[in-house]
């Protein structure tokens, strides 16, 4: 797959930034989360995923069950695409992987740690150190400029990082937004906003990137740029990327596609 010049440089510079920050996300989380919770330590097949996970909302007649006994693991350094119709449980699965939702039954693993029994504070620490999020609605802070949004990503992962503005500027430069770094989100196009959001997600070098419909609000060209950028995170950095999307364009970038239907896995393509 041809890589754009833009995304190649992004990866090189992000790597450089990560090494300059002397930051090790993995070690940071290991110190915050007790080792005895890593019941499957060393089993790479449980790096990221869920086992027999069931989630339900509501009670009685209003009870819905978006996921029913789903088991799926995502290997380190892979790009996975989760597809399926609306209401099939894609976002529920992503929420669990992002430590934002605990299953009623079953297990959730993030970086070899069983997370669904951790406290909220420990889950917050995992999100902070290990996971970068990209959202369909961008979720940028409207009162902050692009550079401050990205700098906030650095600040959240390492509050002592004094060079976060310089690092944020470099990231934006490499995403082609160097001249727009002081503009507020509402002054940027949707594609530019999503690139800022991806830069924020990458700030601090998280090993896992979770993206929810990241191209749904973008035109074709902007969407393709985002696909390329996320693909490069796997190829150049070995990050683990999970994208939830309806967009079939993602198939050509993904190593593996999982299709959900009615809360169950319907199909796994190129299963690794």
């Amino acid at each position: 797959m041809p890589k754009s010049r833009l995304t190649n440089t992004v990866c090189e510079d992000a790597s450089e930034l990560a090494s300059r920050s002397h930051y090790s996300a993995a070690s940071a989380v290991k110190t915050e989360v007790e080792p005895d919770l890593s019941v499957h330590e060393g089993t790479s097949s449980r790096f990221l995923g869920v086992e027999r996970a069931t989630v339900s909302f509501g009670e009685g007649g209003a009870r819905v069950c978006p996921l029913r006994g789903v088991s799926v693991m995502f290997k380190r350094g892979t790009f996975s695409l989760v597809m399926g119709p609306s209401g099939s449980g894609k976002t529920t699965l992503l929420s669990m992987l992002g430590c934002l939702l605990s299953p009623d039954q079953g297990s959730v693993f993030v970086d070899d740690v069983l997370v669904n029994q951790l406290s909220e504070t420990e889950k917050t620490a995992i999100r902070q150190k290990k996971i970068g999020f990209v959202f369909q609605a961008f979720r940028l802070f409207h009162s902050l400029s692009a550079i401050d949004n990205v700098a906030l990503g650095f600040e959240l992962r390492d509050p002592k990082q004094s060079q976060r503005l310089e690092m944020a500027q470099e990231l934006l430069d490499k995403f082609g937004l160097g001249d727009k770094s002081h503009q507020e989100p509402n002054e940027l196009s949707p594609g530019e906003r999503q690139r800022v959001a991806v830069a924020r997600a990458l700030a601090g070098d998280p090993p896992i990137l979770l993206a929810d419909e990241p191209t749904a609000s973008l035109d074709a060209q902007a969407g393709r740029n985002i696909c390329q950028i996320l693909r490069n995170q796997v190829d150049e950095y070995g990050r683990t990327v999970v994208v939830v999307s309806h967009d079939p364009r993602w198939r050509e970038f993904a190593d593996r596609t999982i299709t959900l239907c009615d809360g169950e896995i319907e199909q796994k393509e190129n299963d690794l």
Partner: protein
Amino acid sequence: MKLAWQNIIHDRSRFSVTVLGVSFAVFLMVFQGSLLVGFLRAASRLIDASDSDIWITARGVQAFEFGTTLESRVREMAAGVPGVMQTDRVCMAFAVYRTPKGKQQVVALVGADPNVGKRFPVPDVPELAGEISPDAVLYDVSDRDLIAVPVLPTEVEINRHRASIERQIQGYGAFLGVPFLFTSYRNAIRYLGFGPDDAMYVVLRVSKGSSVSDVKQSLQERLPEVDVLTRDEFAHKSRMYWTIKTGAGGAILTAAVLGFLIGLVVVSQTIYANTMENIEEYATLKALGAPKSLVARIVLTQALLCGAVGSILGLFAVIPVIDHAKSLIPWIYMPWWLPVLMVLPSMVMCSLASIASVRNALTVEPGRVFRA
């Protein structure tokens, strides 16, 4: 913390409303505080102006303005108590004052012996010898319109006795709603019709080396039918009478508390609205791994920033207003520490105002970030 500041200044109109609310509250609190401090100060001003150690009053006298005559033997007996160095007399009573043009006015006439105190306004002191007559009458500049004398000196009548208004003084303006006039003790008792040995207050100075409390105790034992108070005790009693027993202080204090509550409501509403408007951003922050303490800090910082800016504006507004108010309320007084002290309740007010907002920001479900 940049997010906190950016969030509040991003919506400038809302920020202005919040700051205006805080300013208004600070303005009210400082203004009412100045009224209260000035009122307390005025209530004991003449007692504080004496250089005395001990005041003897008739039994049950609550305030300087409501004294009654003591038996003449009280002064003589007090003078004989060991440790008493000097005794002086003070009196105060209401009198009818008539200007040369025939205008009539009730006044509070105060008379005192020359040695009562250097700051006590009496004419027959060595510093004024030759400048004014020993039986001159003094009045405060803020009562000029009520006293209505075109030039100094001017002959007037007090209780149908001829009197000479000779000098203006400052800082002893009308407190009861009637002007104060000051003169020598011997002159005052003449105007008021008291006997030559009558006194309303006997004011004592204790000799060096004697203990004020010991002398006070000896006086009280020897004179059980009167009240013996240190200067500070009588000043405190007088202040408490005017502020607590008359309800005047309560009214001023209530207005100050209302100012605080108005500010609290205004700031609560705007901070709450601001938080709810940005609730999705707080959810995003939490999803990105912001600890609860950071989220709470952002909301609290916003409230405190509004408090700080509002307080500064409120203080800038109230200082000139109090200066102008002195022409209408001569006893209003803003000590330097009052505005400094008011910063604290305004910050408390803003912190209290942010409680509901912090609670909402902390309980927002971070999982909502995946909803488009």
